[in-house]
């Protein structure tokens, strides 16, 4: 149908708007919920704000939406300052945590609400509502009340309602957190496909790192109200800047050592009796003799056989292990590097894990990345 195509222009990247936050802060009394956050979302991009509970994600989203007034800083849409604009004037679609569907209205009425308050004519309104419900595959449920829908269906109504009026921006506050794991994965895919189809700028909030990795063009990682690092999913996962980012996005081992040698392409570290070779990271080059911290992902460590060799090798014994279906998770106790977590594919695994089993671990010089200790951490 024609309206459906109007909502889902394939070339629709241009339908989105660029959002910029400049030095945004929010203080509640003496408590700083958000501190000096600056970031930019390009038109048509999917940005995820990721951070632990209380890191200020919702507060930032509420400031973007206009429900919370920033203590400092500004919000710009396509270069125009919208900091003082009331929420209803911003023209942003928003999906609240828990969806906030109007319980006294049917699905169709819920979706029609933003059009009705814009005084759109009946015929046009109905066509748009139908198109929006088609988009989220809920056309059959138009006459139902929200209470008669499953969680996933409610979530899709909320999406349709937020998209039906061609918003400049779509804001999502933990849109999937109320759903069970399987449904969440399903709707993640749908959300991603939807984003591609409508081509609008999406700003999503979550504390689920998998969701962030799978959905986003860019991820902004927040901690204690501050923006710690922002970048594409791969960049963040492969090159975390700090210990916090490495730890929060995926799992990571942290290896502590002292810099012994520096070469153009890398360095050598001493950790107890073990010598580690490490490719240079993006961060500042450390000085010889300075302490260094490496982040090493569990899946980048290999179990070495008798005759195998790797740039970095350490031996230890299995302290604990768990079978996870697709793989094993091993905790290997080593003398110099403490306990190291290893992810081992279960299919044709070279060993049958057992507690106390001696193993040798190996990884290449570019497997780990140097990271910084967190600010304020001891």
């Amino acid at each position, binding site marked *: 149908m024609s309206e459906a195509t109007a909502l889902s222009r394939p070339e629709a990247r241009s339908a989105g708007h660029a959002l910029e936050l400049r030095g945004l802060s929010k203080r509640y009394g003496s408590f700083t919920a958000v501190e000096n956050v600056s970031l930019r979302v390009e038109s048509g991009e999917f940005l995820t704000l990721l951070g632990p509970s209380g890191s200020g994600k919702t507060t930032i989203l509420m400031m973007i*939406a*206009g*429900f919370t007034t920033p203590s400092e800083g500004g919000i710009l849409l396509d270069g125009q300052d919208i900091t003082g604009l*009331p*929420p*209803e004037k911003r*023209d*942003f*679609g*928003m999906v*609240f945590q*828990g969806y*906030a569907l*109007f*319980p*006294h209205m049917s699905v169709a009425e819920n979706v029609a*609400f*933003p059009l*009705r*308050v*814009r005084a759109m004519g009946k015929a046009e309104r109905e066509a748009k509502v139908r198109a929006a419900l088609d988009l989220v595959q809920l056309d059959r449920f138009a006459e139902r009340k929200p209470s008669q829908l499953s969680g996933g269906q409610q979530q899709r109504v909320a999406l349709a*309602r*937020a998209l039906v*009026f061609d918003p400049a921006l779509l*804001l999502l506050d933990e849109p999937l957190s109320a759903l069970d794991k399987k449904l969440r994965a399903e709707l993640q895919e749908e959300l991603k496909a939807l984003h591609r189809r409508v081509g609008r700028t999406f700003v999503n909030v979550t504390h689920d790192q998998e969701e962030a990795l799978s959905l986003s063009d860019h991820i902004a990682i927040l901690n204690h109200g501050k923006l710690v690092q922002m970048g594409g999913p791969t960049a963040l996962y492969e090159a975390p800047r700090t210990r916090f980012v490495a730890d929060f996005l995926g799992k990571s081992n942290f290896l502590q050592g002292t810099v012994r040698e520096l070469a153009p392409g890398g360095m050598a570290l001493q950790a107890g009796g073990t010598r580690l070779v490490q490719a240079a990271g993006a961060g500042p080059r450390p000085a010889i003799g300075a302490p260094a911290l490496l982040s090493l992902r569990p899946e980048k460590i290999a179990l070495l056989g008798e005759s195998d060799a790797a740039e970095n090798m350490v031996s230890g014994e299995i302290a604990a292990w768990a079978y996870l279906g697709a793989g094993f998770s091993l905790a290997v106790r080593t003398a110099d590097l403490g306990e190291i977590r290893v992810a081992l594919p279960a299919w044709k695994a070279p060993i049958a894990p057992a507690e106390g089993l001696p193993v040798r671990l190996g990884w290449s010089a570019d497997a780990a990345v140097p990271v910084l200790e967190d600010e304020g951490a001891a």
Partner: protein
Amino acid sequence: MSMSGSAAAPALSAATPAPSLPRFRNAGWWGLILPAFLLMTVFYLAPILQVLLISFTEPRPGLDNYERLFTSMGVQNVIETTLRICIITTAVSLALGYALSYVVALASPRAQRWWLLAVLVPLWISVLVRSFAWVTLLRRQGLVNEGLMGLGVIDEPLRLVWNEFGIVVGMVHYMVPYAVLPILASMREIDPRLLAAARGLGASRFTAFRRVFLPLSAPGLVAAGVLVFIFSLGFYITPAILGGGKTLMAAEWIKLQILDLIRWGLGTMLATVLVVAILVTLAIFSRVVNLKRLFGGGA
């Protein structure tokens, strides 16, 4: 009263935990309320039935008393006055109650407690005391008239009491808390995020109120309306004191017929009409709203 009856029933059935042996369990619970039931029947239902009976038998058997409903100007006047005062009282109480509830519902939790106290305290003061307080405020040399004259707003004292106006003032004052409670209850059930959502979707403050808040608080409004209207139908003390015997409402008229004029038949007839009117009102509104929720049973 019927209130406590219907509030108790759902609470009890909700407390019945196991689906096994439902009969036995239910019998147990019913056994518990049997004494109360008997008490109600003997001391409450029986007199009502007797009133009903008298209205058909005094002064002689037949429908004579009820014929007066259509023939007697006096009876019609009383009914008309009663209805008018009740409707005005209900409307004003709902408007004030709604505004008050709105303020309370949007206040901070701390402020809410103080507001609620302020709303409920009048309920603990005798209606007699309150009625006389209004008389002293509203009479010719009362605070209101003196104040207005002192300010030069009026030259002569206004007739604020011993008429319908005075009755309505007194009744509204009594009824507002009863309006606030169900309205506030339904407002508190409204998820504040719904209002934020409405505004985020483009609704102005007022539109969000009209399209989301008002419809969602409507059940409380209807409940409050029924409650206040039914209460006002049987009001006696306030109209008696603030009406000064000039404006007669049903209850006072019944008392007049029975105690002063010893016309039992006529008095009980109107009493019966009153009871029937209340039951009919309840029946109509039970179709509109869930009465259990209205009287606090709730899901």
